């Protein structure tokens, strides 16, 4: 791949669960299990999956906001797993994150000016005298203006506040932004405003986005490529259109068929998957999807399929597809 900004190889995140009071035995869960993928510069890479699939954990690991249990992770050819905290701090200027709910990720006691200025102050980017001007430039990029500078978060709507979070993420001129469900808390009419804004910014500033969402319609709209996760594993990677028009993995197919589309169709039956989502703490043997897969074969219960390239830029982890 030309000029990758992120190269992740077999990365794993294990969380220790507290054992019983008397038992020495420690339990652990693998929230992300041997995930490998590349993201090239200026690309929007979408991560989709249901709750507990590890997509948010993976997002945090890419910025090393969570340590990696094993595997290797390179950002601009720098090995993130070997950096000291001082080096990491410098590097973080190039990588930023926007969360789902700005009300819980930004301080309710700071004015918009101070929220956006904070990273500029921490990294000594702009002198205090020019701060208002600098912040105003950033606010302008996200469609806010002078009148918002001295407001407190509770004086703004959800959409406006998410714009503030985006302005703050842009403050240090990063090359990579992880967007973790950035529009999930918003109403559809406002969601469309924010998505349009993100698309504009990404193109104008040639940013790389990791776009994490459970909403497949949104991910499909914004992403160049998509990775589909299930129980800590990447099960399919491919170009956005291809994954949507011709999903290969049975889970991707089921996921797409489950979305109720806002159209009256002749066939009003939604296709449903049977069964519950298994717990990551105790994933099924073999292929993790075999308990719910409509086309399961005996091999699926025994051996775990690997993520294999089926064409250029298309990877699938399924015994049926590979054979």
């Amino acid at each position, binding site marked *: 791949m030309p000029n990758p900004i992120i190269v992740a190889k077999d990365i794993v995140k294990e969380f220790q669960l507290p054992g019983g009071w008397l038992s020495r035995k420690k339990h652990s869960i693998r929230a992300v299990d041997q995930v490998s993928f590349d993201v090239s510069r200026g690309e929007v890479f979408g991560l989709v999956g249901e709750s507990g699939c590890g997509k948010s954990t993976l997002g945090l690991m890419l910025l090393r906001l969570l340590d990696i249990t094993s595997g290797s992770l390179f950002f601009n050819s720098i090995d993130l797993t070997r950096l000291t905290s001082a080096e990491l701090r410098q590097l973080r200027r190039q990588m930023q994150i926007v969360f789902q709910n700005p009300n819980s990720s930004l301080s309710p006691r700071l004015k918009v000016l101070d929220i956006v200025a904070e990273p500029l102050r921490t990294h000594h980017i702009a002198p205090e005298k020019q701060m208002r001007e600098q912040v105003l430039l950033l606010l302008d990029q996200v469609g806010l203006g002078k009148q918002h500078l001295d407001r407190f978060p509770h004086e703004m709507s959800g959409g406006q506040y998410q714009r503030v979070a985006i302005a703050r993420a842009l403050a240090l001129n990063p090359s990579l932004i992880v967007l973790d469900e950035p529009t999930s808390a918003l109403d559809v*009419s406002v969601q469309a405003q924010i998505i349009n804004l993100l698309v504009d910014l990404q193109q104008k500033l040639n940013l790389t986005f990791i776009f994490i969402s459970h909403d497949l319609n949104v991910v499909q709209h914004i992403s160049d490529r998509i990775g589909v996760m299930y129980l800590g594993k990447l099960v399919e990677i491919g170009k956005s259109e291809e994954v949507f028009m011709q999903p290969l993995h049975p889970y991707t197919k089921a996921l797409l068929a489950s979305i109720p589309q806002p159209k009256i169709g002749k066939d009003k039956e939604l296709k449903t*998957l049977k069964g519950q989502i298994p717990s990551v703490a105790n994933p099924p043997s073999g292929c993790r999807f075999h308990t719910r897969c409509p086309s399961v074969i005996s091999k699926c219960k025994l051996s775990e399929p690997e993520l294999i390239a089926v064409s250029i830029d298309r990877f699938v982890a399924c015994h049926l597809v590979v054979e």
Partner: protein
Amino acid sequence: MRDPILRIEDLHIEFRTSRGVIHALQGVTFDVMPGEIFGVVGETGCGKTITGLSVLRLLPRSARITQGNIRFEGVDLLKISQREMRSIRGGKISIIFQDPSTSMNPLFTIGFQMNKVIREHLKFSREKARERALTMLAATGLPDVERIYDSYPHQLSGGMLQRAMIALALSCEHSLLIADEPTTALDVTIQSQILQLMRELQQKLGVAMILITHNLGVVANMCDRLVVLYAGRVVEIGESRSIFENPQHPYTRGLMSAIPAPGSRGNRLSAIPGNVPIDPGALKGCVFAPRCAFVMPRCLKESPVMFHLSKDHASTCFLAERGDLF
């Protein structure tokens, strides 16, 4: 034509807050027919949840119904005593909320809670109530119902708990079920299971259902008729098919085109500019006028009334009156 099971007429609800009076509903009118699935659609703050709660007289203390009436099977629900209301609530009309883990009592087993409700409303014995509860749990497709009957809410997953909630909500031969965002907290593969289940049970038991949601996809897949609310007013009402194929209010149209759809990549989404007004009561004219792409001088002065486009499709917009479909 049959009589509607529920008729809400010109309902006005106010909230008294520290920042003054907020007019949450301003003249909402609609009928729900027996055995149909009726959708109430809108964004945050449009009044859809308040409408649902008002039917059960479960409004918060700060809210006041200032005008209008709610008739259920011919009875004016706003005029009857608390005691009579109690027998209707849970006996004839039941409700499912978004998050099942907050609607069940965490201290009691599923079975205990179902048993109590069934004994209260159907006057069953403990044994018979247990049987009824197990039958209902099984009807929702839950496996191993005896174990689930004795489980506490935290021992079930979100999808399973919502199934149990549906079993509870339908256990007393209700004639109306209000489902307020029943699948919003669930994952999409579980959401489609629950929607399917609700439709099956609704048809089997013949109950009428009010489905309150912000998700147009859910509505399109479930509802026979629907009403679109915006800032406490009805903006469009009618048959689902007619509204989805030919939306006649700029707001409905805006909502539909704001959703990314397969193949929309590379195109701009048509966002609706601005935000929902905080107190729509303060606005003169059409409540949607400040955000409307088709606004005319008249919209800022007068409030449009409902214009019927066909027998079962009406829109609250001057453009619909003129018949020039933008």
